[in-house]
């Protein structure tokens, strides 16, 4: 008989898990003949834990950190990510990507898309995208843009399709340009690149294809966010990082991951995903997440619809027929 559902199911043998991940990182590098890894650092928990695991596996001299803030990054992003690289004793470099994004038209294109729904929006305003609908009301997931004028007044408008796609497409330059720089440094050092999604993000497609979704190795993609926090403490990630709420750090207004993408804050999402993955009915999970059974049923459904909607992000290029000689099956 399976164990009754409880958050205890997320408990890991942290030392054994760090050993297992480290062995796989080393094996992978040996198999591709690369000498170390590049980690893009955001000052968030996932990239910090990825860095700590790689340092534990390879030593600080084989890990290179990149800080890549831009105009819309939170003020403390750079100081936090620098504190992590200093704490773990690795070499790192700061590359401000604002000029690259400007040259690609990221801000101009995004602002134009926002202006199509909020005509007064200008480059000195701030904005973010928020997800509405879902768990409480049973409404369909739709996105709104929230824009803040320099005098602090906020306007919220639902995004029609063209504007929504325009904002997302322009903002995706950020993740793609960061990954381009990670590959530049990986190539010059003969290193591999890392991806830093946790299980929630990886499973639910919370990444940009060929942006943060691109990487040679993703050491924590199998771990629930709760487990990532537990590993962070075990590995000695600085407390200021562990206390920082998860943020996308992509838009100029502060934006929590749960208001942009996930139906619930991560601790509840973890439990719902865990319960669903292990076949527990919503009634078993509901008391642990402080929600009613119908709400958990909606979360389960939302998990499936996000899996379906983002399946494309996980797919590699489709060939007309296998090229077996190149290693395709």
């Amino acid at each position, binding site marked *: 008989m399976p164990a009754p559902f409880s958050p205890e199911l997320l408990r890991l043998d942290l030392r054994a898990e760090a050993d297992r991940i480290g062995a796989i990182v080393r094996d992978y590098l040996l198999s591709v003949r690369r000498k170390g890894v590049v980690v893009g650092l955001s000052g968030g928990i996932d990239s910090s834990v990825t860095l700590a695991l790689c340092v534990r596996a390879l030593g600080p001299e084989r890990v290179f950190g990149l800080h890549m803030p831009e105009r819309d990054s939170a003020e403390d992003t750079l100081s936090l990510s620098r504190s992590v690289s200093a704490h773990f004793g690795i070499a790192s470099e700061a590359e401000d990507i604002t000029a690259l994004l400007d040259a690609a038209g990221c801000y101009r294109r995004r602002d134009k898309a926002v202006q199509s729904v909020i005509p007064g929006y200008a480059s000195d305003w701030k904005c973010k995208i928020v997800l*509405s609908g879902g768990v409480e*009301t*049973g409404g369909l997931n739709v996105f709104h843009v929230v824009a803040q004028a320099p005098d602090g007044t906020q306007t919220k408008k*639902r995004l029609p399709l063209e504007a929504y796609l325009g904002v997302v497409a322009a903002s995706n330059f950020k993740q793609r340009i960061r990954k381009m720089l990670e590959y530049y440094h990986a190539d010059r050092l003969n290193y591999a690149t890392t991806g830093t999604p946790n299980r929630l993000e990886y499973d639910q497609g919370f990444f940009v294809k060929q942006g943060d979704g691109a990487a040679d190795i993703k050491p924590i993609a199998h771990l629930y966010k709760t487990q990532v926090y537990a590993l962070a403490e075990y590995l000695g990630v600085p407390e200021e990082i562990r206390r920082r709420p998860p943020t996308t750090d992509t838009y100029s207004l502060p934006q929590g991951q749960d208001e942009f993408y996930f139906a619930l804050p991560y601790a509840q999402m973890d439990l719902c995903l865990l319960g669903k993955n292990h076949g527990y009915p919503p009634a078993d999970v509901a008391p642990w997440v402080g929600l009613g059974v119908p709400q958990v049923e909606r979360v389960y459904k939302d998990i499936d*619809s996000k899996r379906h909607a983002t399946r494309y992000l996980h797919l590699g290029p489709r060939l007309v027929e296998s090229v077996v000689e190149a290693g395709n099956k």
Partner: protein
Amino acid sequence: MKHTTDQVKAALRDFVAGNFLLGKDARTIGDQDSFLDSGLVDSTGILEFVGFLEETWGIAVEDEELLPDNFDSLDKLTAFVMRKAPAA
């Protein structure tokens, strides 16, 4: 514009065929089949429906109307259109 329930449903079926099935025949989609459960339509697709309703029948969809009960099958969408833009 004068329209009947049958005309609305036919227009919606054509839209589904042209927009979500890349022109493939939409006759296999049952009137009550869930667009969301079948994976035919995702959240982006809902926005496409909203745009189509606005363009075709001048319907302004309110946030609180974005519910599966209004959007999640040909029958539900047809009923929603008829309520929001009844035949003149």
